[in-house]
């Protein structure tokens, strides 16, 4: 069951509860109303019976026609009430049947009473007439007696009247007795009806109580059942929603911390299960993506490292080339300076010996030695002088030393140039004279510029430039080296280096008459790693680095070329003050 269904269920259960309680209440109330109506009818019945009895009493007292009519009306209303009573149970039905029969019995008894009453009236009338006759008879007799004063002779007529009177009295007594019995019957029947009505009322009351109890029980049952249901579904929802959500939360927190190995592992079939599966799937993907991203980063890093290594190696290669050349340039003067100094040093021995010989001769002359010794010494000094003259002369020594000094100057100049070239101590300077820079570079590039390459300098009057000299020199060295390499060593060629002003920019043109670049490769020459040189000879970064440097200085570098005719590289750099040197990356 999914959460949606569970929540629906949880929402529907109280509704069911309310509806069922309502239904129970409705049914109960209907039932109670019904039963209460019956009870009321029963009560009215009882009341009616009492009224009937009262009316009957009234009637019995007055025998008025109105009372009789009233009685009849009451009786009929009683009959109606009885008709309203419905019996659903046997006991009720029995009571009802008995009540109905009592009801009819009452009518019969009342009618008998009425009839009896008529009889009683007739009997009284007869007694009255009889008494009148007796009185008449008695009066007649008295009249006769008074006259005769004779003992009254029995009068038969009187006798008969007296008998009749006695009979009438008996009849009247009988009638009274019957009447009393009938009244008793009527009362008994009324009582029976009252008791029946009361019974019915009690039964109905019991029923109401029963129904209420039942309703209470039913409602209690519903409440209990639905409550349990709600509790169960709530628990279920708690179990299947809240706890998994807590796990999902823990998972997201773990992932937020960077733990991509975390898996929710919720295998339920509801939405959270789906969510968890999607989450895990997402993590798998993320991990894979992260892994591949890491790999990419690594590869990128490696590439960057190797690129910077290549840039470094390009720098080192050009520097190495230059150093080799410079070493050779220094080596040559060093060689002869060293040779010259060594020669002169050796000569010093000879000079000293000669000086000693001269001093010996002078000593001999002063001390007045004999001719022979003096002659020997003199000859010795002469021989030495001759040898000295034949060997390296003083002039020659001077010349050698002078050459040595010029050699040392040459070395000094080279070292100065090297210092100027690199300018490692000054990263960015203002007021850099590009002509001097080019001079420097050309001097240092001499070994690269094979002996058969002629360099023509056409330096114009140019403004100073704010730049990083070591970088700009690197560009010049690179371009000049390329130009030299384009020229066939056997055939030889010319490199023209020209500087001029082009508006607010300084323009440097380096032209060679080498082999040139084919049109299809010309657009690629500034691309990193593009090289026409053999593997291992060039990194293919020289021109790309050159362009980077020039562009960082706010300048441009372009190349035009024609196969067989040569190439022209044009570099422009903003003259000082024109453009701020862009910050290096």
């Amino acid at each position, binding site marked *: 069951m999914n959460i949606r269904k569970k929540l629906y269920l949880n929402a529907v259960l109280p509704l069911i509860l309310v509806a069922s309680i309502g239904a129970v209440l409705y049914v109960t109330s209907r039932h109670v109303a019904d039963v209460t109506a019956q009870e009321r009818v029963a009560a009215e019945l009882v009341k009616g019976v009492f009224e009937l009895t009262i009316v009957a009493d009234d009637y019995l007292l007055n025998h008025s026609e109105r009372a009789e009519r009233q009685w009849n009306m009451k009786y009929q209303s009683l009959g109606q009430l009885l008709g309203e009573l419905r019996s659903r149970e046997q006991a009720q039905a029995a009571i009802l049947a008995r009540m109905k029969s009592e009801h009819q019995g009452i009518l019969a008894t009342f009618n008998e009473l009425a009839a009896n009453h008529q009889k009683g009236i007739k009997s009284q009338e007869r007694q009255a007439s009889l008494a009148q006759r007796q009185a008449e008879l008695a009066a007649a007799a008295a009249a006769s007696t008074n006259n005769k004063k004779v003992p009254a002779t029995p009068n038969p007529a009187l006798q008969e009247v007296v008998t009749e009177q006695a009979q009438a009295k008996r009849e009247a007594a009988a009638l009274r007795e019957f009447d009393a019995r009938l009244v008793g019957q009527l009362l008994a029947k009324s009582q029976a009806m009252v008791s029946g009505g009361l019974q019915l009322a009690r039964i109905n009351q019991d029923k109401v109580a029963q129904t209420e109890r039942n309703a209470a029980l039913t409602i209690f049952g519903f409440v209990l059942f639905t409550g349990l249901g709600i509790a169960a579904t709530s628990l279920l929802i708690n179990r299947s929603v809240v706890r998994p959500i807590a796990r999902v939360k823990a998972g997201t927190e773990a992932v937020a911390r960077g733990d991509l190995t975390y898996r929710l592992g919720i295998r339920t079939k509801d939405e959270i299960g789906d969510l968890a599966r999607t989450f895990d799937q997402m993590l798998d993907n993320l991990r894979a993506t992260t892994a591949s991203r890491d790999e990419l980063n690594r590869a990128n890093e490696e590439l960057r490292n190797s690129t910077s290594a290549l840039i470094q190696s390009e720098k080192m290669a050009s520097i190495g080339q230059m150093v080799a050349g410079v070493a050779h340039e220094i080596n040559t003067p060093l060689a*002869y300076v060293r040779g010259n100094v060594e020669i002169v040093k050796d000569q010093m021995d000879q000079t000293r010996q000669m000086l000693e010989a001269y001093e010996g001769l002078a000593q001999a002359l002063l001390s007045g030695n004999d001719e022979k010794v003096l002659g020997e010494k003199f000859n010795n000094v002469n021989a030495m002088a001759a040898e000295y003259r034949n060997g390296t002369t003083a002039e020659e020594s001077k010349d050698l030393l002078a050459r040595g000094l010029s050699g040392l100057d040459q070395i000094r100049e080279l070292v100065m140039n090297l210092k100027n070239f690199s300018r490692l101590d000054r990263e960015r300077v203002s007021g850099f004279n590009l002509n001097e820079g080019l001079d420097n570079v050309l001097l240092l590039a001499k070994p690269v510029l094979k002996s*058969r390459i002629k360099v023509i300098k056409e330096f114009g009057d140019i403004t100073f430039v704010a730049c990083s000299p070591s970088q700009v020199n690197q560009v010049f060295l690179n371009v000049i080296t390329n130009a030299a390499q384009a020229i066939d060593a056997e055939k030889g060629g010319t490199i023209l280096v020209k500087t001029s002003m082009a508006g607010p920019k300084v323009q440097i043109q380096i032209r060679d008459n080498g082999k040139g670049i084919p049109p299809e490769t010309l657009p690629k020459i500034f691309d990193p790693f593009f090289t026409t040189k053999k593997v291992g000879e060039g990194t293919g970064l020289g021109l790309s680095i050159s362009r980077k440097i020039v562009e960082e200085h706010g300048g441009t570098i372009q190349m035009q070329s024609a196969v067989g005719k040569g190439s022209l590289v044009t570099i422009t750099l903003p003259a000082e003050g024109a453009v701020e040197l862009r910050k290096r990356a």
Partner: protein
Amino acid sequence: MSSKATVLFVDDEENIVTTLKALCKNRFTVYTATSGARALEIIKSNAIHVIVSDQRMPEMQGIELLREVRQLSPHTMRIMLTGYADLAAIIGSINDGEIYRYIYKPWSNKDVVDTIEAAANTALALAADVVASSGGGPEAESSWQPAILVIDDDQEVCRTVEKLFAGRCKVLSASTCAQALDILDDEPVAVIVSDVFVGHQDVTPFINILKEQHPGIVTVVLTKFNDANMVVGLINHGQVFRFLGKPFHQAQLRVSVDAALLYYAKCRQQPRLLTRHLVQKLDTAAAANPSFTAMLMMRLRSLRAVAAAAR
């Protein structure tokens, strides 16, 4: 001053030749040139015993000059004096220039003078020889069959040499120095074809000492290792006849070994020629591995004794 040897210095830097001239003018008749072309003119019009040339020069490089000189004046001792250690040039100076020595700039005056002196003496002696034996002509020695010793752990080299010289020469092979010495004890070896590293062992000391003790044997080095200093050492101390790189071309190997055999034969006829290949005494190289060197020396001494007895 006809007894003085003639020396020609060639360098594009005038100061260098000036210094060399100042250094040598007392001992030798000195000529100087600042270009290859000028040097060739001097060679053509003068008998030059020793030529000392720079490698890096405009117009004509030292190696080209020495190649020309070898053609024009084969008896001129050729010395390279340069500061620039371009490997190709050094190897070229062996194979094309067949140079006597390779001297680095800056030099020590004494070394230069001594080297030139030794070269000059050899050249003078040879010149006298040539004059004495002119018209003799080389004699054919049909009965004699020279042996070629291949020292290499790569069997391919040996097989190739066997294939190339089958029938003409006896081809022997050794994969260690000890084996090579055993073979040298028994066989008259004319040419050695060797790598510089055999079984991870540097055999350059062996090659050098062998040349010192047995100047007659002509060495062809065939290796994939080429370090400028090593090659210079093989010139100065080992007087290697040819230096070939691996992988090798058969034709190249054939030509080189042929040339070596021919040169061996020539030296047999003119033993004085061997003085052209006197090697610089080992000092640093031997010090590198004294026990190995001592062992070699002992073996070689015994070898010499055998050779002497045979004679």
